[in-house]
């Protein structure tokens, strides 16, 4: 029987033990999410590693302090952590006197670019568009927004250049299911990419951008 290829594969955490601040469980929880949360923050603070570290610490401490508010039946842990991280990023950038939640270079992204991105299905992207560093940064930011299983699948496929057979083996699924997983991951990426792009372009008009 083939396992369902959904994104429902976050690490298993014993929330009762986590709420009791059981050291072992706190460690497991932190180890499971430290890298993806850090990656999520890193691109949103303009690749400032020091600031990303500070924000990551604030995020995990706030999350653990308020872990009673997290209800696993209402959603997954990673999106909840990114919700807290967004607030921490906003506060950190405000403390640094930045009005906008993204580095200044996003202001370079103009409306022509916005139109090009939104028309993803109607024309092939020209090379000049892909050569813009803002586009690469948007891609990286969108990737860190995805559910963990999708992030992993896309990383294996595009950056580690593993074959479908290898991805399937690592996931413990057959090749057909791996193909479906990658397809869904790409659709999720498209949605994240377009949403983030839209929020930035909208934010430019309103003077704020908070993807």
């Amino acid at each position, binding site marked *: 029987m083939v396992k369902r290829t959904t994104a429902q594969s976050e690490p298993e955490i014993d929330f009762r033990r986590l709420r009791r601040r059981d050291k072992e469980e706190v460690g497991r929880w932190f180890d499971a999410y430290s890298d993806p949360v850090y990656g999520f923050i890193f691109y949103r603070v303009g690749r400032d590693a020091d600031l990303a570290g500070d924000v990551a610490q604030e995020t995990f401490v706030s999350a653990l302090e308020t872990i009673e508010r997290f209800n696993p039946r209402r959603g997954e842990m990673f999106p909840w952590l990114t919700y807290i991280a967004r607030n921490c990023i906003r506060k950190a950038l405000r403390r640094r006197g930045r009005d906008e939640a993204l580095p200044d270079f996003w202001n370079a992204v103009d409306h022509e670019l916005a139109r090009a991105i939104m028309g993803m299905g109607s024309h092939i992207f020209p090379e000049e568009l892909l050569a813009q560093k803002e586009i690469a940064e948007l891609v990286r930011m969108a990737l860190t927004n995805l559910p963990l299983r999708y992030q992993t699948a*896309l990383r294996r496929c595009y*950056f580690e250049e593993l074959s479908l057979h290898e991805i399937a083996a690592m996931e413990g699924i057959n090749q057909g299911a791996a193909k479906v997983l990658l397809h869904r991951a790409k659709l999720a990426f498209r949605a994240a990419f377009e949403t983030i792009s839209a929020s930035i372009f909208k934010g430019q008009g309103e003077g704020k951008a908070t993807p």
Partner: protein
Amino acid sequence: MSGMDKNNDQKRLDENLDRLLRLGEPAPRMPEDLKSGIRSKLFEVEQGSGKKNIPPGRRTVWALAAAAALVFFFIAVWNGGAPAGIVWADVQGHLDQVHTLTFNGLTRTGMQVTGRNKVYYKDPGLSRSEEYPPDAGSGPVKEGPRKITIIRREPGRNEGVTLYPGAGRGELFDSVVLTDGTKPPSQPPMDLASFNWELMKETAADKTRRIGDRVINGIPAVGFEFEIPDRVYVNPERQVHAKLWASADGGAPLLIEVESRDPQGQNMRTEYSDFRWNVPLDESLFDLAVPKSWGLSRTRAETAEYSDAGLAPGVTLQIGPHGRDPLTETEDVAGVVRGEQLTHPDSVIPRDVRLTIELNPEAIQRLRDYARANRDELLVVDFNGQIKVVPNLYGTGPSQLSFNLSLLDLPLAELEERYFTTTIERNGL
């Protein structure tokens, strides 16, 4: 759209997605040293913990106390880390011998001088910080200070004044923390000695490192470096890097350099120098009097921490969407946690009174879920059928919320008598 068009669109989309994804990179992993730092912080987070708000007035006091603490701390660490003959136990004896202290502080943000201070301390709990214009030049300060802050601390209470000589204006402030039980006040420890001892307990002597020798003002000096909690901006999670240079002959500290970040996140470098220990300091330096001809304003902050208080019998409290059935009833109130009052005795500005209560976990979750799902609706606290106010659903604890009771036009002491069960003793305060 024809089937062929759809197919072409899909192909273009797939190709674009592939090309975009190849622009990505593996997201950076969290550095291992950062992981280990955060992991140890997380192990300190206790069940039911929450961030406590410290009123702005107290932040000022806290910052000043922390600066003093830093200096005392360095003296202690210097002894503790010294290679010859001195052990950590000697630190206490050394601190006990320092009862007055003066030093100069110079802060640079980037290459620019942004702060220049002269600081005086006298046990127990007297402090004076004179702030000079950043461009006042090096060496002895000739211009008068543009701002003077004097604080007199005692357990549970701080009195102080900020003087602005250029504007002929003074601001007196008084901050009191009361408690009706064994629960300690949320106020940070203001007593200088206890605060310093607390800091030293957290840092072991082996956390100091020797960093070589240099000559300071013609005096050969040996250097030590440390990481200490940044208490100045009430952020003990952040570590501050510091260096202390002490005379190679006798070991008196000559220079302390601290690198930190201000609340805006800018890198700051502060140097403390010109130390003088146990010098006679006139009591008049810590006088809170404001010159007669100056403008004067006063503020008084009062915080009452209730250890085991609730609503008085018959008092009702319901919370729910405006104009609809309540989501929580009086029975859902698990306790009254804190009362805060800010008054402006010389002004027509009305007093501000705020109450923090604890709800049953299910009740607070119900409210927060409702607020999240109905963002265009106001949740309203109906306090005893007398006033309706909008609460802040996210208080300092996981199940706490707070709301303003100023509309009742009653001082906090009277609110306690009428509406809460508390045994707090005010002793005329």
